[in-house]
């Protein structure tokens, strides 16, 4: 499959990926039936993967309406391309790559240049993470729950969020991200580092609601 210059290949399963994408009961049979155009089997594949595909779209796009449109697009694309799935990688990995490529294509169509992340979607000074040469503060370890992290990731500038989601959440390697985003691996590493620095900064700030509660309580 080729999505705007991006070759949709089945990469070999990376170490650890099996843990992230364990086999799902009934999936293999549903895939084979869906290849023959079986609507019921396709419905099963949708039920199995809709949440992961949608969550991925939502994290990459940060917008419910667009995320739903891209989820729809991804599954329609899946239906047309499932015949080319040969099982060399986990089906979910293949579907994720297909989804990522579609989302990136969508973003390019919208005019978001992903060719050079550094230059085109570099955040403003205000958004840039600060270097940490100052005094030590409270450590994050053990203090960050899923909701807080999810919220912080959503508030990252788009370029940072994209690389963070692809690398740290989805498990893509820097060289894979470089191909997908048409940037250098160095650029990908640098964006990821800045994303983590920015997240650290965000996560060390007091929760807005807690802060508001405290202010309210003080009155």
């Amino acid at each position, binding site marked *: 499959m080729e999505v705007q210059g991006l070759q949709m290949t089945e990469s070999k399963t990376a170490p650890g990926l099996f843990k992230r994408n364990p086999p799902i009961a009934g999936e293999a049979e549903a895939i084979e039936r869906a290849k023959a155009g*079986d609507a019921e089997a396709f419905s099963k594949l949708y039920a199995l993967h809709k*949440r992961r595909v949608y969550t991925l779209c939502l994290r990459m796009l940060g917008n419910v309406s667009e995320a739903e449109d891209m989820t729809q697009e991804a*599954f329609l694309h899946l239906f047309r391309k499932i015949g080319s799935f040969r099982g060399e990688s986990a089906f979910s990995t293949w579907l994720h790559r297909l989804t990522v490529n579609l989302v990136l294509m969508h973003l390019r169509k919208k005019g978001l240049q992903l060719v050079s992340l550094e230059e085109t979607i570099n955040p403003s000074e205000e958004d840039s993470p600060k270097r940490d040469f100052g005094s030590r*503060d409270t450590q994050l*370890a053990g203090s960050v729950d899923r909701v807080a992290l999810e919220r912080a990731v959503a508030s990252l500038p788009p370029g940072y969020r994209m690389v963070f989601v692809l690398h740290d959440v989805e*498990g893509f390697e820097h060289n894979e991200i470089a191909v997908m985003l048409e940037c250098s691996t160095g650029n990908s590493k640098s964006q990821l*580092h800045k994303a983590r620095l920015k997240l650290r900064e965000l996560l060390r700030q007091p929760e807005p609601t807690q802060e508001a509660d405290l202010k309210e309580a003080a009155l």
Partner: protein
Amino acid sequence: MTSQNSSNRSKSSAPLSCADFQQQLPDLFAASSESLPDDPALLEHLKTCENCSALVRDLQYIADQARQLLEPTHEPSDNVWEKIQKSLATEPTYVANPNKQ
């Protein structure tokens, strides 16, 4: 810091500044996500600088915590599936009920 600078620094065994150390962090994290760097100057700085070691711990913690986000928590509305079905109905290879073939 360029690799040239890094190499010169290693030879002279000059202590690293926080700025130098932090400039190398993107590559360090990418190269050794599960092991400590083998450059003695980097290790020394990590051991002696409380600020940078806290930074490394935090960044590693964020990377580790990110994995929990892989588990999907959001669900698309029912409209999505309805729209997919409508579009699929127009596909020539779509077999709504394979048993009737």
